[in-house]
Each structure stands twice: as C-alpha cells, then as structure tokens.
C-alpha cells in the first residue's frame, strides 16, 4: 500500500515566468508605440513650424485633466495590488473598481475631445484639414493614430481590469490530490466518505475491472492569512499593463498638448 502515503499533487503555477512573460509583452508594446514616437519626432523636426501651430488647436486643460485622471488611476491600481497582498480583498476590489471608473472617465473625456475636433472639421482626410499645410495634416494624423491607439489600450485595460476584479472576487481554491490507491487492494469493494461519527456521507459504485485508479481530491479555500502574492499573478500583470498605458500617456501629453 505504498501508493496511499498521501502524494499531494498541487497546481503548478510559474509566478516568476508569468511576470517575465508580461514584461516581454510590454516591451513589444513599448516598441510599437516607440515606432510611432519615432515618426512623430522625425516629422516634428522636418515640420517644426506647422506642428507648433497645429498643437495650439488642442485643449491643454482637457489634456491635463486626463493626465491627472490616469496618474491617479495608477495609484489606485498599485494600492489594489498592495491591499490584496495584505489579504484585504474587499478594499482591493473597491480600489480596482475605482481604477476602472477613472479609466472610463478618461475615455469619456477623450470622446468629447475628439467629438469637438470632428465638429471643427478636423479629422483624418477632412476637407478642412486638407486645406492646411502638410505639417499640420501630419500632426493631426499622428494625433489621431497615437491617441487612438492609446485609447484602444485604455479600453482593453478597462476590460482586463473588469475580468481581474471578478476573478479576484472569487477566493482561489487550493487543491490537493491524494492519488494512486492500488485498485487491486480494494477490488470488489465500495469506497465511502465518512463523517467523524462514522456515518457515510457518500459512497462509490463498486470497484470492479472497469476502475483503474482511485484518487481523493481535496479542495479548500484559504483564509486571508494564507493569501500569497503568487495567487494574484493576474492582478499584478493587469496592473503592469495599466501602468504601461499610463507611461505612454505621460509622453503623449507633453508632445501633443504642451509643445506649442
């Protein structure tokens, strides 16, 4: 009966690997936006005058407000991770909800900002814009594609955070499997689960030739003091993504709104 000595088979979770994988993904994002920043800096060098005038069209107040919103959302995000590590699940989820709300607020501002541009006839390939110098057309082309791609990232981030909030709200199960009881030893018997008084709670079908393995799987829910940060790799990685989106905006903001 050597097989019944309680061989626990846990879930294999590669915490460090998950985090490195997330960073590698973030690097591809960085190079994606890096290419666009390169395009911006080249056109800015060759059309400095036009960029200067075109940038005056943008509303610095809205840009500044969106900057403050994203910076604050990064704070609530990092606090959500920190409170989760301290096993304060409800606080963590409230902070995540706040982060999502700030992300949505950013998008609403962006919607009105773009809407105002469209009303003034400023959109890619618009009649109004095509009458302007080449540099201004380039500026708005870059403005719409770069803030548009960033906006898409905010939308993806909000969805990712929502999924993360739901997954975090569920307590993670831990599972231990005691497996591989020699079937021959219990052939022709029934396996039963007994309560402390010896009363059967559950019993199996008879073990016969069709059964080739008997295993017991224990599932339990950890109390807060058992919370390990390794259990919240998704939350941490979603946070890393959200902070990257913030970093990209940190560069977009001065380059489009401030340099006039």
């Amino acid at each position, binding site marked *: 009966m050597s097989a019944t000595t309680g061989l626990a088979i846990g879930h294999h979770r590669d915490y460090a690997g998950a985090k*490195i994988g997330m*960073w590698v993904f973030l*690097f591809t994002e960085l190079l994606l936006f890096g290419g666009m920043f390169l395009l911006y800096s080249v056109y800015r060098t060759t059309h400095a005058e036009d960029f200067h005038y075109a940038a005056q069209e943008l509303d610095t107040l809205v840009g500044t407000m969106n900057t403050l919103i994203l910076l604050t959302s990064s704070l609530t995000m990092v606090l959500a991770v920190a409170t989760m590590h301290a096993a304060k699940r409800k606080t963590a989820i409230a902070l995540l909800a706040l982060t999502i709300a700030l992300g949505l607020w950013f998008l609403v501002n962006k919607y009105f900002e773009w809407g105002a541009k469209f009303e003034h006839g400023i959109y890619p390939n618009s009649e109004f814009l095509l009458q302007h110098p080449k540099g201004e057309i380039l500026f708005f082309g870059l403005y719409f594609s770069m803030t548009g791609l960033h906006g898409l990232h905010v939308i993806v981030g909000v969805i990712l955070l929502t999924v993360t909030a739901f997954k975090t709200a569920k307590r993670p199960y831990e599972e231990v499997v005691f497996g591989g009881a020699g079937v021959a030893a219990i052939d022709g018997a029934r396996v039963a689960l007994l309560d402390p008084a010896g009363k059967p709670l559950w019993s199996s079908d008879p073990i016969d030739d069709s059964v080739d393995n008997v295993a017991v799987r224990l599932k339990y829910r950890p109390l807060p003091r058992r919370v390990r940060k390794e259990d919240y790799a998704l939350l941490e990685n979603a946070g890393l993504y959200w902070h990257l989106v913030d970093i990209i905006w940190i560069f977009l903001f001065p380059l489009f709104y401030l340099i006039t």
Partner: protein
Amino acid sequence: MAGGKTVKDEHSGEQHVGYDVYILAWVALLILTAVTVTVAGLHLGRLSVLTAVAIAGVKASVVLFFFMHLKYEKPLFRTMVYVTLGALVVFIGLTFTDILFR
C-alpha cells in the same frame, strides 16, 4: 523616498512596499505634471521640447520603479528594461543621423 516602510513577505522573502511610498510617488507625479504644464507656458523655445521630454522621462521612471515595482524586483527585470530602452534609443538615434544630415 528611501525612508518608506517595507515589510518582509513571510512566504517569498520579497519586500512589500508601504502605502506611503505609493502615495509619495503619486504626489511626485502630480507635482511634475504641474511643473511641465507651467514650463510649457514660459515659451522657452527649443528648450521647451527638451524639458518636456526630460520631465516625462522622470515621471515614467517614477511609474516604472515604484508602481511597476522595478526597484524591488530582481536585477533581471531592470536589465530587460534597459536593453529594450537601449534598442529604442538606437533606433531613434540612427534614424536621426539620417534625418539631420540629409
């Protein structure tokens, strides 16, 4: 910010960062935003681009090192970030050797 409280994680031995560190980082980011908006209003000409990008770089570093935990991660993560940023600098630098002397 070196005085921020850190608590040893009992499971992994890694350090947990105190909430005060994050709030200080956020305050620093808000101040830097105020600085960059103010400086942009001064019309420094050529210098304005340089200062704006420099301030953005400092802000990005605060987010990377504190919010994204780069300061507390193993050296491998910092190396990976530096290699990526180095690649970006090479791309941009090489392109400008073409653009500027064309």
